[in-house]
């Protein structure tokens, strides 16, 4: 087609590769009016279909998922869990020894910017610019209560090591102390009010003093009297305008009386609290030092800067064997492209997060005894939950964003193609529905029924069920009112395979609701006989509608009989969290993937592990498999070939053929290419159970549809990076 980029009379230009035609105002070819438009970069939100061996694959790239930037980190030494607060107000709990599996997600709310996060004992508190202190109920994965501090926006929150008090720094210049009492906190007192806002706080480990970072100054308060002991002025930057205040973004108070501060001038300053004098200052960046964290032994400090670097300082004896130690700048890590808003030095690693939304776990090699997959470098880009649910039978996909849902219909393609080739698209994918939430809360979970008729989602406070009507291109939904009372909120939602029932997991139990055209009816509640009170994060229903499995964050997996509505059995508890599970359609075996990449198959009828699972455990898995760093997110079964189990994580798609032998550690793990080159006879002896496909990258979801096509939802990280705000401009050598 001729377009405005085409000269009069010329042949129509083709958009260059990687670009596509974007027609702004269509012309009239018959009247000679060309289209007006431009070549734009392909956003990849056109669905590509490619034929791949056995499956037709829908490559979906139009899920515009953007994770939220990381604002705060808190590490709990006792439980070894990291709490991560994001810009959208959500709080996530990662379990460090279990390969940093994202155990819990507490969705945020609109207008709830978290500024600080603090563990006090086993309790997690956050405070934000809305001026409220929030405590979280971690078992039920929701907000326990919020409390207004009455001091304006809160910039910092920190609890003392004794676990008795919580201090918050407010916009009005007060440091407010709250006493922790059973189930709640109580305001105790204000420390001396300052003129400027309190940006950062740090308790002395003894709990008797607190250091507060402000504009241009650091103040030390005595907790007993509430009066200031010292006021230390921080220099404004050299070369910057004098009027620009120096913000002390972060302070750390050490037990030997040293205070370390990081400020907007780019300096790390080391102060003495006895005299209130500056001991040493290190210039580490031209922009801001935004976060500081000290190791448990107080021999190392990490600082996050807005250039995306983490700088480590260590307390080192300058002369070996002497006690005379100094803070020396040692390592620099650059794993972020954007500002680092939060750092935490945990036992064996440095965890950092920032505006580029990735959580990076950089192991400190000198602290690690044995190098293993558990202590490897990790960059966590995507949540360890599924954000996409597919209606297998009707080819619909439901995308879960924080504040809305999108329902898309998959495209259709023409005929057959060679394996590996891409097919022509006959019909483009179509966005059927954009469902915007009302209220402040963000979506916690959502699901679309396999038939595509029902959509359900839940926030922390409410659950909505919709019926979808599709008639000649007209899509309409009706909200189902008068839901049973049990469906007030859900932690996880799931439909039965025939779409007749909805399973809604509340904290410990699963409610069963039957769906019909008339509406829904509460059928019953499934409760485990015993076990923990942790919330359920995974549900799996069997194809024949007989069984339901639920997994909770205490790694327990319960199996319920849906006919008797009773708990059937409990799978022996494994030390690592379940990341994905599925019930085999024919054998009714529960297939479970764990965060440490182990896999188990449990026969529901026999209530024991299957022979194959035992073989796997006996022989062990290949080290390359165990060293993968993202958890498997879905377990699917190929109805055409019952021995095939399909798994996927963020980087690959894997088919496990249970009929083939398992690879031992010496065997070539990624052997598809070598197999191809081998003659037919040898191929058999060389092949093993794992077939890995790395064609796709940055996978959010893979689902096998009823028509034997695979839906692969990708979210390329490069696309994500382009949608983030621009990072600080840094001069690079030779540019």
């Amino acid at each position, binding site marked *: 087609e001729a377009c405005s980029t085409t000269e009069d009379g010329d042949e129509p230009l083709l958009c260059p590769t990687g670009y596509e035609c974007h027609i702004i105002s269509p012309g009239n070819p018959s009247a000679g009016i060309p289209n007006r438009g431009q070549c734009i970069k392909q956003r990849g939100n056109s669905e590509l279909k490619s034929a791949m061996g056995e499956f037709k694959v829908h490559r979906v790239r139009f899920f515009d998922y953007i994770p939220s930037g990381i604002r705060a980190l808190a590490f709990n030494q006792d439980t070894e869990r990291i709490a991560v607060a994001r810009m959208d107000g959500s709080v996530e709990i990662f379990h460090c020894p279990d390969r940093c599996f994202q155990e819990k997600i507490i969705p945020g709310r609109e207008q709830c910017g978290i500024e600080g996060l603090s563990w006090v004992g086993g309790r997690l508190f956050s405070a934000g610019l809305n001026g409220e202190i929030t405590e979280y109920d971690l078992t039920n994965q929701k907000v326990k209560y919020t409390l207004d501090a009455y001091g304006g926006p809160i910039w910092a929150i920190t609890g003392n090591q004794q676990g008795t008090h919580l201090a918050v720094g407010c916009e009005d210049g007060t440091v407010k102390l709250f006493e922790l009492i059973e189930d709640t906190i109580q305001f105790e007192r204000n420390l001396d009010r300052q003129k400027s806002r309190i940006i950062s706080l740090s308790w002395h480990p003894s709990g008797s003093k607190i250091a507060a970072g402000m504009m241009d100054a650091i103040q030390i308060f005595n907790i007993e009297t509430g009066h200031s002991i010292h006021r230390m002025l921080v220099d404004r930057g050299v070369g910057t305008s004098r009027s620009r205040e120096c913000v002390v973004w972060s302070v750390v108070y050490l037990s030997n009386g040293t205070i370390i501060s990081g400020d907007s001038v780019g300096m790390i300053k080391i102060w003495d609290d006895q005299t209130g004098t500056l001991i040493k200052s290190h210039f580490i960046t031209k922009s801001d030092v935004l976060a500081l964290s000290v190791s448990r032994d107080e021999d190392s400090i990490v600082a996050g800067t807005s250039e995306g670097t983490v700088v480590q300082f260590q307390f080192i*004896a300058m002369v*070996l064997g002497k006690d005379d130690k100094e803070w020396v700048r040692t390592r620099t890590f650059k794993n972020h492209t954007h500002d680092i808003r939060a750092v935490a030095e945990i036992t064996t690693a440095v965890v950092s997060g920032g505006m580029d939304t990735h959580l990076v776990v950089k192991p400190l090699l000198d602290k690690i005894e044995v190098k293993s997959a558990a202590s490897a470098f990790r960059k966590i880009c995507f949540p360890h939950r599924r954000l996409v649910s597919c209606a297998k039978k009707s080819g619909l996909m439901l995308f879960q964003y924080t504040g809305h849902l999108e329902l898309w219909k998959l495209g259709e393609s023409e005929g057959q193609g060679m394996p590996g080739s891409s097919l022509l698209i006959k019909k483009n994918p179509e966005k059927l529905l954009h469902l915007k939430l009302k209220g402040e809360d963000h979506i916690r979970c959502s699901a679309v029924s396999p038939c595509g008729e029902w959509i359900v989602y839940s926030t922390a406070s409410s659950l909505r069920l919709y019926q979808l009507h599709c008639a000649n291109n007209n899509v309409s939904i009706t909200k189902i009112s008068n839901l049973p009372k049990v469906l007030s909120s859900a932690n996880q939602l799931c439909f039965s395979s025939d779409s007749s029932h909805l399973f809604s997991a509340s904290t410990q139990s699963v409610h069963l609701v039957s769906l019909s055209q008339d509406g829904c009816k509460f059928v019953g509640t499934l409760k485990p006989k015993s076990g923990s009170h942790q919330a359920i994060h995974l549900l799996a229903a069997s194809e024949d509608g007989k069984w339901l499995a639920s997994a909770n964050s205490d790694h327990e997996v319960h199996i319920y009989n849906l006919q008797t509505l009773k708990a059937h059995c409990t799978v022996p508890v494994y030390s690592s969290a379940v990341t994905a599970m599925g019930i085999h359609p024919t054998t009714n075996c529960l297939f479970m993937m764990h965060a440490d990449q182990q896999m188990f198959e449990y026969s529901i009828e026999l209530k024991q592990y299957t022979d194959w699972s035992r073989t796997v455990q006996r022989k062990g898995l290949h080290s390359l498999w165990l060293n993968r760093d993202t958890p498997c997110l879905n377990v699917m079964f190929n109805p055409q070939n019952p021995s095939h189990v399909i798994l996927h994580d963020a980087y690959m798609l894997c088919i496990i053929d249970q009929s083939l032998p398992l690879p031992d550690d010496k065997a070539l793990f990624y052997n598809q290419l070598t197999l191809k080159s081998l003659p037919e006879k040898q191929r058999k002896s060389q092949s093993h159970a794992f077939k890995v496909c790395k064609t796709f990258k940055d996978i959010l979801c893979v689902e096998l549809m009823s028509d034997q096509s695979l839906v692969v939802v990708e979210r390329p990280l490069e696309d994500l990076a382009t949608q983030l705000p621009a990072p600080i401009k840094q001069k690079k*050598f030779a540019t």
Partner: protein
Amino acid sequence: MVEKSDIRVVRCGGSKINLRPSVFSTDSRFVLCASGDSVKVYSTRTEECLHSLQGHTNQVTGITLNPANHLQVYSCSADGTVKLWDFIDGILIKTFIIGYPVFAICVSEKHEGIIFLQLSMATNSKSECLQLVAVHLPKSAEQEVEAKELSAVCSHISSNPSCTALGRGGEFIAFARHLQLNVYFFRKQKTYSFSLQATDKKGAKNAFTCVACHPTDDCIATGHEDGKIRLWRNFNQKKEYTYSTLHWHHNAVNTLCFTPEGTHLLSGGIESVLVQWKYGADNKKELLPRLGGAILHIAASSDGQLFCTSHSDNKLTVIESNFKVCGVIQGLVKGDDVLTDLMIDPRSKALVLNGRPGHLQFYSLLRDKHLYNLDIVQQEYIYEAGLDQFEVVKAVFDIKGSWLATVEERGRKSSDLEFFLKLWAYDEKTQSFVLNTTITAAHTDRIISMCFSSSEETTMLVTTAEDGQFKAWCQGADADTQQDQNFWSCDFVGSYHNLKPTNCSFSADSSLLAVSFQEVITIWSPETWEMLTTLCQPPGEIRDLCFGRLSCSKYLLSTTNRNLCCWNLLTCALEWSTSVEVSKLQPDPLSENVAAFSYQSKHTDLFVFKPSEPRPLFTHKNVCSEKVHRAVFVPQEEPLNNCDESSQWLNRSQLYFLTQNMDLLTFNQATEEDRMLSSSKRLVIDDSVAVTPFYLLLGKHRQQQQNLNTPSYTGADKPQQPQGSATIKELLHTPAHVLPAASVLCSMFVNSLLISKTGVREEMESSEQEMDSEKEEEESEEEMEACDSQQELRAQGSVDEVTPKLSKAQEKELKRVRKTDFSWMAGLIDSKP
């Protein structure tokens, strides 16, 4: 069959002074550096060479101050010895014979009586690995001691000596090789090693290039190939070691050096920028750019006031601690190749050759000192790999040294060749060459050779080029430039059957010009530009062409790759020819002699002959193992009078030649050398301690007096002149900055001219002896201060105040002495305008 001759090939002058880091004396008044077979002591203020500590017979590979006595220095050499010197006075104190070639030395205060040497691994001397051994120096009074107590400290260390460094107070030694850093603690006798990945994720090369240790803290700085500097700490643990990284250099870090206080770290590399990092505040750095060649070594004086950087262009730069360059000590610049011939500037008698890129350097061989650089290209040189820069490829002086012709070219490798012919006139006022004419398109293709006419009256330049023409250039012959007669223009263009001219040469009286065209020599008359005759060579392209001199001026010599031919120009017939492959033919401008270097069966032989007779005067087999393409006769300062036939050719001028390894070698007579050596040795034996030049002067004088006082009075009547003039010579040869005040010298100067009366002497003798005993006491204290000697001098001056009566003959003698001295001085003034 080797001819029995006492002429040897010796390394002479122009040695590398950048091979090893230089060393500052404790008072930072002197800087010492290894230079060839000797150690040179330079003054940091005047940049003048004070002494050359000679005695090693092979390359000096390391120097270090004796920690026990800061006036002494250890030097080690590939000849397998370690020598201890008093560098202030230039005296060899002791020689320790190790027996193996030594590659580097380090010492520490903590390890008394031990020096650490790097030797090659005993098992296979060919491998690049060295081992570090501790040598216990035996305490013996003898001058030459064999050090037998060797104990290996560590093996497999890098062959680069800057990869090994002693740590804080000698507690540990750090040595790096390839990708591994090892730290050996002497007390615990334990080695910790840390290795790096060959490349990091970004593909940077991590191999170690140098190591330095902090003087007070336990911190090791290492330089890497990718330009990073790592500061290692906590290295007494296998796991908890830590390092921080500094990165400014974009290419390998050649050297690192902590300042003595440990407050700063200096680093240098190919960028020729000295970088000073503030220790502890890693971001703060200071840069000193544009230092010339790549920085190879950095040394800091013990008070931290001065730094000395060694550069790849054979230069030492002395830098103050406030980053100001305060001195440059330039050695003979040797690039990868010398494109110009070796030449002698007829005025200054300096050796002229390619120096820094785009420059000609003038180097005084006699003083072994770089005189100055002449910028030929006059364009900024940019250090960048692969950039094609203008290079001076040809240069030639006329016979008086008043004209210099140069050719610079660019793009020889690529097709687009650019070249300029430049003519430089000597300016008496500025004592330098000034650009007179630039000829942009002298020829259409590159110039192969050029020469000036040798006549005194008219200067003429002849160039031959690949375009098949030779051109003669004259001053102001062109009609267009008549307003100024000084410019050069083309006078004649000649060619011969479109053959490519290869070489040209003027006869000694400039009446004939010989131009060789491949296999044909054409003889032209420069007056009429008429071709006189052609001489047809036996097959082979002509390489070198030269006329005989003086009595042999009727001969023309030519070489091909197989033959050396001598033509008689009177008969136009071949006089004689020999089949020898001559790589370089060099006539001596002061005699009839011609030197021919011939390369045969992997070594070069030298023949010196007169064109008149085919029998060589002198033959030296196996001069070196490489081809010799550059050689030059340098006029002797004063003619020698050797009677020996084989060495007679060295009487007027000395032959220097350059091997392909860029070693400047010369032929020297053993007898002469021995004489020089013995004279210096005698001085050393005379007063083995604390000999300053001034003291030497004084002591000699006194000795003379003592001689006079000996019972045989016959010496009293001896003419005093030789002794006096020797004293004056000493006086004049001593650098001005080490001389005492002129007032002090004056009386002595006069004294030296006076003839002492013996009668007075007798009384003096006792007091003289007393002074000697005093002197010995001082010697036992090992240090003698300059003021003492001055006092002594005054004492002596007062003694001499007793005016001696002069006989008439003596008075005459005195007058004569004064006269001669005066003329001497005048000569000196003339020569140093």
